[in-house]
């Protein structure tokens, strides 16, 4: 009986102590026990973080499976929009290129409006290093004939040497077999400009009259002599005058106005 009584008192005391402690702790400011929280956190939080990560992952996957259909639809819609935009972009690019070409044609026509001309594109270039002919996409069906003059935006290109129904072969002035009678515009002296093997941008001006004064930067134009090229078409400018011991042998280097490596659009003079 005594033993039971003693045990009961101890139990009551312990319960009271726990109660008091509970009251004290719970009524105190939380900040004052943060060090205990911190200690607990050190052990608990990593595990907690791991579990949270896993939980999020699983619940995220859940939503992924739930949303897959809507995402698919959205993706398809975006793809369709993207292809539509690409399509319109391509159309715009084509229009832009077309616009540029037409502008080029208009500029060319204005420049040489006294001549009747047919515009053409260069469709083939010479495959040899020793000649320079081009093929253009107009032929006898468009009224092109042999020996017609071909010009470009900035000056003389050459003349037609053969014609098919839809194409024409043009010998350019930089071809080694080409020789054009021309005038130096400032002095009106007649010279002959020939193509050279050295460069596709330069011509060699020979037969310079002994009394002629040739200066660097002088403009060279066709003279109209020879029957192929009309008078007054710009060929290029004098780049350099090479004087030799004998004045009759002197020659000049003429830089062509037309860039033959980038030549894409030309005009054929038909009258």
């Amino acid at each position, binding site marked *: 009986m005594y033993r039971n009584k003693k045990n009961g008192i101890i139990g009551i005391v312990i319960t009271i102590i726990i109660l008091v402690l509970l009251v004290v702790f719970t009524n105190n400011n939380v900040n004052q026990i943060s060090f205990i929280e911190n200690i607990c956190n050190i052990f608990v939080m990593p595990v907690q973080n791991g579990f949270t990560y896993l939980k999020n992952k699983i619940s995220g996957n859940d939503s992924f499976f739930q949303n897959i259909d809507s995402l698919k639809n959205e993706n398809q819609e975006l793809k369709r929009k993207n292809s539509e935009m690409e399509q319109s972009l391509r159309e715009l690019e084509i229009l832009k290129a077309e616009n540029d070409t037409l502008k080029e044609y208009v500029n060319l026509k204005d420049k040489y409006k006294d001549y009747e001309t047919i515009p053409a594109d260069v469709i*083939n*270039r*010479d*495959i*040899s*290093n*020793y*000649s320079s*002919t081009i*093929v253009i996409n107009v032929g006898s069906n468009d009224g092109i004939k042999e020996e017609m003059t071909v010009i470009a935006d900035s000056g003389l290109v050459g003349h037609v*040497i053969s014609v098919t129904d839809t194409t024409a*072969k043009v*010998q350019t002035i930089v*071809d*080694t*077999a080409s*020789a054009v009678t021309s005038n130096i515009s400032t002095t009106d002296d007649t010279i002959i400009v*020939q193509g*050279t*093997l*050295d*460069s*596709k941008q330069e011509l060699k001006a020979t037969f310079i009259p002994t009394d002629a004064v040739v200066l660097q930067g002088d403009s060279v134009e066709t003279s109209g002599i020879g029957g192929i090229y009309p008078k007054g078409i710009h060929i290029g400018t004098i780049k350099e005058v090479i004087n030799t011991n004998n004045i009759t042998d002197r020659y000049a280097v003429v830089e062509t106005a037309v860039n033959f*490596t980038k030549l894409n659009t030309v005009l054929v003079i038909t009258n």
Partner: protein
Amino acid sequence: MKKVLAIFILIISFFIIYFLQSNIFTWFTIAGVMPNLIVIFILFVGLFTGKKLGLILGIILGFYIDIIIGRQIGISGIMLGLIGLAGEYLDKNFSKESRLTIVIMIISATLVFEVGCYIFNTMTLNMSIEIFSFVKTLLIEILYNIIITIIIYPIMQRLGHILEETFKTRTILTRYF
């Protein structure tokens, strides 16, 4: 049938090479000088298929080039025909298995073709003769051809052996027995 197919493929290859030459290599140049892929192609045909096809393809394709872009018709056909013809004789006397001999053959073929064309054009087209410029351009062209040959040599060998099996009958080399 196999031969007809091979010839057809060769002609298609010619057009591909022609377009490469006239479009890509007109701007992909060394000092403004293009290589001459056509000479390499015809020599390849002559070496691996024999003189008959080399000669015929050389002449036909040469004339085709002259008609399409040349200033006068004939010389490319004749010169390419000669290179095709020479292919078989070169094959009999030299080994195709060595890169060096192939390179030497390409050098000679380019040299013969360009010099032949230049002399013919100078005589017929009233051109002024520019020896120095010509030699300079020719040397760069030969160099370019050598580089291309070295690069495409493995493909040349592989395709060449297929062609050789199609066109040339197997001969027993009696001199070794």
